[in-house]
């Protein structure tokens, strides 16, 4: 009997096995490439190798873990059966629609999406090139202030990515993303016309269909970024390599898997943006009338038709459950013959898409992993962290390896003795998971998996607000420098001090100090305010989640408040002037108490 079952499952299993086999090959090749690159002492090759290697390793690691822990042949493990004590209503007629008048007409055009992507496409090509050929030197604080490539990426783009949460929604980035854009053009054979899809169009194995790769990928990419201080903004060519790596990987994946499989499962930004989209004021594309879809047999929004493609994100018809996966591609809007699709602005507090019937365990786990990444970015600005990290680096011998991975960077002013140590990085990353795990185990009324997922969902606003807060100093303290670079993107010839440039002068007069990588004092209250807002949303979300899933409200409140207050305190400490001349000085924390007017929020 068992034998028969095994044999008949072969079709599924073989798919998984083949996938894993090629991933193993890929991992080994990338590992060898990285190793050879270290021997060759070529830092750009090492970085690329490391990025590819860690990506492949993530996929392999997740797959193997799933194979060991999950018996079933599907991804049913990501699904949490909710008790659904109260089902919140799906639609609200009063929501204002975006697709009216000109915008509606615009999105009906075939080339609309192309036009949206094109500008960012151009900018990012400039960035890739300028990053390689431009001026690479760093200032004494170890950051690059004259090269357009690294500055627009880390002073403007990255902070803006998180500001999008409340300006529009996270997936508006996906709408303009140049990497997936060009991959899609290649896959479809034309920037906007309908043709035959090229490539193998394989399906990502069902058992491994999860967004966990993305969350873990984000965590690992952040580690690489911190290691090379890419986002400092650091040596510009390192930024270019990251962009080239994403672009190439995406082109590669699109030729193997279906449509936007890369965006949905692998892209390191997919999980964070999916989460922030759940709490954004701007909704995603959504059907107007569910009843109409029930009787619709052509499903052109999903399958496409003669003229148009179906949803490349596998998200349509975009019920609340699939909202976080809608990349605003607008294909469904063009394809639906019944004009049944709209794009709405949500009602305050914009939490409608968070508390859905079908909760996802993997999404819950992603929140915690990502919150761990943010926690690390806060903690690493505290002196105590540096002390522990350095001790660990010497104790574990990691310093030796780190030297091997960063040859030739010191000539640009980059120095590193191993920060961040993988051990402490992993540990800090795992703190939120451990805490929520412990609290969920204590819940007696609700099954563990549901408790864990539901509690994690209440932390989405905390994640969104803290990651935005952490990036505010860069945005407000440095983004103006980009204005200098528009006329001189490569930054060549700028040898005089940055404050003698026009925009550098403006920034300096505002009180910020990019040369020392700190922002104006008033950025501190702003950061605190953003976190307070996140806590407020977290509390609101807690109430709804507790009503639907039946957990005690206090469990949510203690988590939201606990993390919220921790982040606020760390924000205050990390912005301290760290001056021994001021009272309440502590070498581990800096100034424990100080006048906020003296704050120096770090980049």
């Amino acid at each position, binding site marked *: 009997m068992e034998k*028969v079952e095994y*044999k008949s499952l072969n079709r599924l299993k073989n798919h998984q096995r083949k996938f894993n086999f090629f991933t193993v090959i890929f991992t080994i090749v990338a590992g060898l490439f990285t190793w050879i690159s270290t021997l060759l002492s070529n830092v750009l090759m090492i970085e690329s190798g490391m990025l590819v290697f860690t990506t492949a390793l993530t996929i392999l690691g997740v797959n193997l873990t799933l194979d060991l822990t999950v018996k079933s042949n599907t*991804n049913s493990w*990501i699904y949490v059966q909710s008790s659904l004590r109260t089902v919140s209503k799906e639609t609200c007629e009063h929501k204002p629609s975006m697709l009216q008048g000109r915008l509606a007409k615009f999105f009906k055009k075939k080339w609309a999406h192309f036009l949206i992507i094109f500008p960012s496409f151009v900018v990012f090509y400039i960035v890739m090139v300028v990053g390689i050929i431009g001026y690479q030197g760093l200032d004494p604080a170890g950051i690059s202030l004259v090269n357009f490539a690294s500055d627009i990426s880390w002073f403007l783009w990255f902070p803006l990515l998180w500001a999008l949460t409340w300006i529009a929604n996270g997936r508006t980035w996906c709408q303009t993303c140049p990497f997936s854009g060009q991959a899609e053009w290649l896959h479809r054979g034309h920037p906007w016309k309908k043709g035959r899809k090229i490539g193998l169009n394989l399906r990502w194995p069902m058992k491994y*269909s999860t967004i966990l790769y993305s969350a873990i990928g984000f965590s690992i990419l952040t580690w690489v970024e911190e290691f090379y201080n890419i986002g400092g903004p650091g040596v510009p060519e390192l930024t270019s390599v990251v962009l080239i790596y994403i672009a190439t990987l995406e082109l590669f994946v699109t030729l193997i898997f*279906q449509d936007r499989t890369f965006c949905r499962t692998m892209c390191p930004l997919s999980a964070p943006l999916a989460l922030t989209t759940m709490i954004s004021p701007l909704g995603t594309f959504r059907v107007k009338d569910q009843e109409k879809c029930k009787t619709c047999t052509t499903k052109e929004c*999903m399958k496409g038709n003669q003229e148009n493609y179906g949803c490349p994100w596998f998200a349509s018809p975009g019920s609340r*459950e699939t909202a976080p996966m809608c990349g605003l591609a607008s294909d469904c809007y063009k394809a639906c013959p019944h004009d049944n699709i709209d794009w709405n602005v949500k009602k305050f507090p914009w939490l409608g898409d968070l508390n859905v019937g079908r909760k996802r365990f993997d999404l819950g786990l992603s929140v915690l992993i990502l919150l761990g990444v943010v926690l690390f970015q806060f903690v690493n600005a505290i002196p105590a962290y540096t002390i522990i990290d350095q001790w660990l680096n010497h104790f574990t011998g990691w310093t030796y390896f780190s030297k091997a991975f960063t040859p030739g960077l010191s000539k640009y002013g980059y120095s590193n003795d191993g920060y961040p140590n993988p051990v402490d990085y992993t540990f800090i990353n795992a703190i939120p998971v451990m805490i929520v795990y412990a609290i969920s185990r204590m819940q007696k009324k609700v099954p563990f998996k549901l408790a864990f997922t539901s509690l994690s969902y209440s932390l989405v606003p905390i994640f969104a607000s803290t990651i935005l807060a952490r990036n505010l100093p860069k945005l407000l303290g440095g983004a103006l420098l980009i204005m200098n670079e528009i006329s001189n993107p490569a930054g060549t010839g700028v040898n005089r001090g940055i404050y003698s440039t026009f925009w550098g002068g403006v920034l300096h007069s505002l009180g910020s100090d990019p040369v020392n990588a700190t922002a104006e004092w008033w950025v501190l209250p702003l950061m605190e305010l953003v976190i307070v807002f996140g806590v407020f949303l977290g509390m609101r979300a807690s109430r709804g989640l507790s009503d639907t899933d039946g957990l005690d409200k206090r469990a949510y409140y203690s988590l939201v408040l606990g993390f919220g207050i921790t982040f606020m305190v760390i924000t205050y400490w990390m912005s301290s002037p760290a001056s021994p001349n001021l009272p309440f000085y502590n070498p581990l924390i800096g100034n424990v108490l100080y006048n906020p007017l003296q704050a120096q929020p770090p980049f």
Partner: protein
Amino acid sequence: MEPMVFIDVDRCVGCFMCERACALARAIEINVNFKLAELVRPEDCTGCGACERACPYSCISVINHGVNISERAKVTLSRVRRNMSRRLVTIDDDATLREASKVMEMEGIGSLMIGSHIITETDVLNGWFSGKTLVKEVSKEAITIEGKSTVDEALQVMNEMNIGHLPVIEGNSIVGMFSIRDALRSMSVTSINEGLKVRSARKEEKARVHAMEVPLLSTGSTYGEVYDVLKMKGIKATIVGDGVVSIRDITKGVAEGKSQNDQVEPRTIKHFRGEDPLHAVIGYMMQHNVRHVPVIENDKLLLLSIREITSRTVWIHAI
């Protein structure tokens, strides 16, 4: 080997295409709260793979290696839940027997539910003739059957317990009623196969095979007399004059407020001949909603009843 249906809960958007594709087996349904396709009745899945082909996002994998699809389809279609009547008529505990008989008469059914209890025509008459007046005095705990049982299994229960109605349960609730009539009707839509060790009425079978001798009462018999005869012989109907009087007719009398000493009014039903083919008789019975027909054989009046057909012929188990 059972077919296996795997559904990708990451990609599925609850678009109803698979549910629509599984129209025959109705094994897969969309859970509207979670916007998710679920295999709700795995025992009914035939492994046909229609859902897999219908899904626009290739969310479904059907493993049907070594599954005999048409064989499974036959079983699926012969499940009680597919052949029962969804109409469940209930009555109060405190209702009188006369009210109960009125409801039966009006709805054209032979049994009523009282919570998990049941009252049939026979119960009403037994009560009436033994001087009881209330439903609760004669109703009994119902013998039920699960929706996923086959018609064959249901008939076996009916014949063993000598009852004509089985309330159907799914999960913990009663969802319908399965009667002998439903069983007969199912024969016209399903062809029961040899694999189930059951065979259906053969074309060449004649009406006479199942016609039974019954007491012939004279016109002018009273309700009381007829009922006594029925009860004594353990039958559901008999011939009065050249018409038929069944339990149902007596129940109707109760409903109309007749007394036990009133004369019965026999129904005149077309007389068949012994050599008429059985399937023609069944057709007539289904069409005219009667459960008994008189059959003339060698100048004698016999009675052919549905019960005989279902219990003896159609469902003979090949051992």
